């Protein structure tokens, strides 16, 4: 059963600079994408690496001419070890959506960030 835990103030989480907090023994990464805050377990489903210690970043797509374009800036976390990319909001791997990092619901109330883990 998820428990609501106060973790920090929202203005303490900057885009591109995730924070890692402990919630009852679980290491959880907190990310800012624009105005929203997201929480992800700091364990990569691939090999158990500290996923959220990798960079918060964007990824690539391509145009009609085959050129490579950077997009989705700050929406992706790239695992600290092997570089697997995950969608921060959903936890899904960009290669195989069946592989997913664990994410937790977040609420922000009066500038306080609560993780439901």
């Amino acid at each position: 059963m998820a428990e609501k835990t106060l973790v920090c103030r929202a203005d303490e989480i900057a885009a591109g600079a995730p924070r890692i907090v402990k919630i009852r023994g679980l290491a959880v990464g907190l990310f800012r994408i624009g105005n929203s805050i997201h929480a992800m377990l700091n364990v990569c489903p691939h090999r158990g690496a500290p996923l959220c210690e990798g960079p918060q970043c964007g990824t690539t797509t391509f145009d009609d001419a085959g050129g490579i374009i950077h997009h989705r800036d700050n929406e992706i976390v790239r695992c600290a070890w092997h570089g697997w990319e995950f969608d921060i909001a959903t936890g899904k791997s960009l290669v195989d959506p069946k592989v997913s990092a664990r994410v937790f619901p977040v609420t922000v109330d009066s500038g306080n960030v609560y993780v439901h883990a």
Partner: protein
Amino acid sequence: MFIVDCDCHNYWLSAKVLEPYLSGVWKDMFIHGERTGPEGAFPHGHRPWFHPHGFSRKDVRPVSEDDNYTIMKEKHLDPNKIDVAILTGDEPMEASTLANPHYANALVSAYNDYQIDYWLPKDSRFMGSLVIAPQDPNLAAKEIRRLGHHPRMAQILASQGSQRPYGDPFYHPIYEACAEVGLPFAIHLGGHGGLNWNAIAPAPTTFFWETHAILHMAAMSHVASMIAHGVFEKWPNLFFVVIECGVAWVPSVLWRLDQDYKALRKETPWLKMLPSEYFRRNIRFSTQPLERPDNLQHLWSILEAMDGENTLLFASDYPHWDYDDLKSLHLPPDWKPKILGQNALEVYKRIPAPAKTRAA
């Protein structure tokens, strides 16, 4: 059982058979120009390794040009009950080693016309390979459009030796033309001299057997390159057939490709599937020379890891020294109907359906 031999070499005694199919400056060059060998040698840049015995089986000894067919029929097609033999030529694909792309293209064009005129009418079991000189992809595409609709052309064929890995966008005009005429693109061991990159990664090796055993290094590069550059996203129905480049290495390379792609997919955002999934959908390997470990189970486990029952195509390589004899082919017996014939029908759409062939 319906049997398709995906690599049957139609020899000539002398490349002079091409003379009637050449014209203008190319005919002049062919007759009067310098060549690699005596009169009748096919112009090409030779590799630095010489086969100690020559390539052909020693029980195949043609004296006249027509013997090339009669011996093939007597020693291979009839006794092995081959239903369809895909002719792969022999020297013509070596045109890929010539620096002059215009001359190279003229030579393969002459061969393609000769093949249609001389070989295909000889036996209803024959299907042809349209040989291209890939060093000028636009000329190659033109040649594909010139003859690619011929009903008995089974595939477009180039040598494994090339100037760049085949996925490079430089070559994409070739695949555009293949897709247009609806034929697979095949590469065959060869073209390892002259213009082309050395087939052996660090530097040329020394002995022929030492080299021959590891020549598939180039095929590894082509497989990785075709997948990475998104050839199968651009042309999802294109089959890429790898002939005579070994098969037991394939699973290990696919495992490595999948592993690295999972970490670094952002380099190639056009891909939508795992490398191994493109392999399964778009790439086929011919069996000969099928690796032969002491414990056959080791081989069969590897073949299972590449879904060999569905991704392998039988090839004999007649009449070469490392010919695979159908009667002693070491494949799992249950897989034979598919590997010996059914898989080829999926790839080579112009092969007549078995029932029709039998009735004919």
